[in-house]
């Protein structure tokens, strides 16, 4: 087979089988897990994660408790026009709020449409594969 034919065969196979495991297509956000700790925005080498939040004081849950201050998310956006798919944000998130989805069909004609806001980032959750099984007996 020529290199061209090898490439063509690989392309056909990938169309049939779908993307290989751990493919990096786009990043999904599970907002419920995000504590607005800012770690991902600080670690991203490309400065492409924008997070806005505000403080909210919630009343004590018990009679003798104290009011607590929560951080509420106002904006979470990833600029995939700047992103280099390094995966550092997904790795660094201590609360499992970011996931790789293998979906790569988000091309656009406008650079600003590559900025995915929180609603869009949530939609990608639908295509996040289940986590791989634990090795050995640790999963049973």
């Amino acid at each position: 087979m020529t290199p061209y034919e090898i490439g063509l065969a690989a392309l056909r196979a990938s169309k049939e089988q779908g993307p290989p495991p751990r493919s990096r297509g786009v990043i999904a956000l599970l907002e419920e897990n995000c504590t607005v700790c800012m770690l991902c925005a600080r670690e991203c080498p490309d400065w492409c994660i924008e997070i806005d939040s505000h403080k909210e004081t919630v009343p004590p849950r018990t009679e003798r408790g104290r009011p607590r201050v929560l951080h509420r998310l106002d904006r979470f956006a990833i600029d995939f026009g700047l992103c280099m798919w390094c995966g550092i944000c997904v790795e660094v998130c201590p609360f499992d709020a970011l996931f790789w989805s293998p979906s790569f069909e988000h091309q656009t004609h406008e650079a600003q449409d590559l900025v995915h806001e929180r609603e869009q980032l949530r939609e990608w959750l639908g295509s996040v594969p289940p986590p791989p099984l634990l090795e050995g007996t640790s999963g049973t």
Partner: protein
Amino acid sequence: MTWFDRVQAARDEGFTFFDFLTAVDLEAEGFEVVLRLWDPLRHKEILLREQVPRDAPSLPTVTDLFKGAGWHERATAEMFGIAFVGHETQRLLLSEAFDGTPLRKDFVLAARVAKRWPGAKEPGESDADLQAPSRRRLQAPGTPKDWGPQ
């Protein structure tokens, strides 16, 4: 063995596929030019490195061995200011008018001066809070002091 001879020896050994050539800025120790070749029959790779001094860094071109190295030498020349002797490297990505070598670590990236670092915000803050005066803010790692919009 000279750089050229090493690349030639590797090619003759079967590493006939040129993958890429680039450089690493080692700061005080100069630059390291890196070249990766691939042996398509044995499925093996080889990474060749050569250190060049910071003052007037240069290496002989390997375009006589691999024509495809031409673009990589052009990019490495304009990004790091490394000369490839025997190859009149024209600009590849930068315009003729561009001044400087953007992949050297001491080069200040203008875009990063103009853009505010998203990590400067604390949990519970939004863009508006960044206007608040006289708070000590985290600084983006690897940026000189007083960078960005103040």
